[in-house]
């Protein structure tokens, strides 16, 4: 009997809840879809920091929502459509794998605005955004070449996608600008997310003679290994200096906040247009963590390069030759963005073989 009463009570309250849930309408709802957990302290974490920045900046003009851990397959379309149906004014898809499902939903809901990170397909109501992380990687390359005693860095990577290849190339171009004979050893961990494997990979690279570790994976594991061994490295996605106060020389910090604030404001003002923005250090989207644990000379060089990039110089400015020595860009020629976004060849001096 008690149970029945409880059930009845629940049902009643449910009805009430349903009504109250439908209020809160006139604010703009901005929504995010993340591929990983926001607790990864990496890629998805940084996007969520961007969402929080929007909340902070725009206060009660907006309401935000997110779904984390969305698989880049069958589930994605449903999550995007759910957001569209729930009255989101703008939806951000933060990972490449969301491109097609997001586009499908964007076409179905022409009044909702969409933005997709790191992809290449767009629509009148679906814009693109990305960050020029390679600018930061060029600086890291220069620092590594200056500071490495062995002219050898270990490079930990997740999966061979153009973004990662572009990063390796920018790093090498930076390093070669200081020391043409600089070398890297590359290890693929085939996972976006396994701190243990990242640590193992870092150890393997150090054991094979590298004295600096660079990573294009998200966790702090690798740089912690560097700290332990008294060697050096760079943080990734976020400033990891707390984890490696003696080892981190700098870090490429993804700061999506400025872009998100701009986009959400544009929607509020009614000025939003589907754009194709690719922002870098100049715009604050790519942010270099404080230069530390290096000589003053290196620090000065890094700061100069950073200023040069802010001034509009592109690290992918010719002459650039590929692994086989074939010239890809003649002296003075800047690689077009389209080439960079689809990059699948290594610059000269990289010994790894890219899976074809």
């Amino acid at each position: 009997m008690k149970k029945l009463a409880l059930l009845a009570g629940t049902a009643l309250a449910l009805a009430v809840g349903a009504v109250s849930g439908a209020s809160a309408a006139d604010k703009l709802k901005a929504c995010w879809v993340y591929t990983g957990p926001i607790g990864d302290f990496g890629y998805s974490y940084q996007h969520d920091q961007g969402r929080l920045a929007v909340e902070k900046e725009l206060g009660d003009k907006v309401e935000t929502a997110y779904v984390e851990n969305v698989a880049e397959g069958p589930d994605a379309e449903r999550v995007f459509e759910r957001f569209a149906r729930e009255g989101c004014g703008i939806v951000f898809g933060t990972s490449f794998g969301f491109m097609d499902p997001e586009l499908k939903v964007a076409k179905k809901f022409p009044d909702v605005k969409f933005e997709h990170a790191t992809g290449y397909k767009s629509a009148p109501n679906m814009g693109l955004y990305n960050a020029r992380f390679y600018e930061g990687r060029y600086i890291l390359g220069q620092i590594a070449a200056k500071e490495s005693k062995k002219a050898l860095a270990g490079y930990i990577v997740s999966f061979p996608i153009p973004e990662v290849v572009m990063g390796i190339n920018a790093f090498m171009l930076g390093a070669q600008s200081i020391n043409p004979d600089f070398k890297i050893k590359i290890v693929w961990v085939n996972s976006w997310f396994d701190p243990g494997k990242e640590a193992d990979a870092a150890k393997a690279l150090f054991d094979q003679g590298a004295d600096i570790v660079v990573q294009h994976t998200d966790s702090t594991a690798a740089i912690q290994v560097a700290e332990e061994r008294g060697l050096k490295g760079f943080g990734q996605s976020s400033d990891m200096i707390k984890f490696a106060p003696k080892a981190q020389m700098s870090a490429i910090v993804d700061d999506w906040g400025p872009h998100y604030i701009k986009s959400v404001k544009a929607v509020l003002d009614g000025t939003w247009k589907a754009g194709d923005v690719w922002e870098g250090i100049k715009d604050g989207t790519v942010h270099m963590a404080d230069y530390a644990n290096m000589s003053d000379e290196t620090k000065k060089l890094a700061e100069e390069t950073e200023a040069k990039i802010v001034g509009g110089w592109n690290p992918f400015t010719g002459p650039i030759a590929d692994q086989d020595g074939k010239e890809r860009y003649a002296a003075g020629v800047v690689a077009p963005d389209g080439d960079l976004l689809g990059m699948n060849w290594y610059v000269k001096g990289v010994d790894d073989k890219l899976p074809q």
Partner: protein
Amino acid sequence: MLEAIILTIITAATPLLLAAIGELVAEKSGVLNLGVEGMMVMGAVAGFAVTVSTGSPLMGVVGGAVAGVLVSLIFAFVTLTLVANQVASGLALTLFGLGLSGLLGESFVGQPGIKLASLDIPGLTTLPVVGKIVFGQDILVYLSFAAVFGVAWFLNRTRAGLILRAVGDNHASAHALGYSVIGVRYLAVMFGGAMAGLGGAYMSIAYTPLWVENMTAGRGWIALALVVFASWMPWRAVIGAYLFGAVTVLQFHAQALGIGFPPQFLSMLPYLATVIVLVAISGNRRATLFNTPSSLGKSFVPDR
């Protein structure tokens, strides 16, 4: 170089060995707990949280074990007291653990941890070659080996171990002989939980002193597979864990040497190696059958 590689392999193998040896005991008592991943990740978050809050990694180790036991008790209650299906309950435990650890760990994301100290005996640890490997490990590495010897001795040489095996092999007769089948299984499951918790704590305190969601990254599943690999023999679990760890680490070295083989295939090697070695040694079918607990996965209700 060889020394360094061996040290890395020990680190990679220890969490697997800890969790596997615990699950081995649970399975020997007839309980198949597929929730190792859930217990491990709870151990990881609890170990990290306690370490950071108290400043003592040793307390963290204890915290990890306690957390493992606590969640294993949920599983034990559901499968042993209420005789629910073990396979599905174990998977439920994995879901539960992954979710709860994520919730509990939210405030610890982005905080640096404290690493469990390694043993340092002047004179011994500094010995060439073997010094660091034998005398320079942290307490959990020694504990993993102590657990292997302890469990082997317990199962084969003690009366209590005999009872545990009897319960796992034929719960009806064990019950008829007056042993508390459910009681023995509760203890075995709790031991499994404690060891999985330690394996998880090893991840967040020793392997990589940090907390991120899902940081065990499927090692609980590997540990489960290693119990099967071991054919329920403790010393074989050591072989399994170290084989898996070694192949994982060595394929990174192979990559760093630039052998130009697709990394995906190199990453497959630990899994393939485990399968191939198991096939090679499972020729001795009688020994395997002899060691397989016949009541594995079957519920027991004492009739009165």
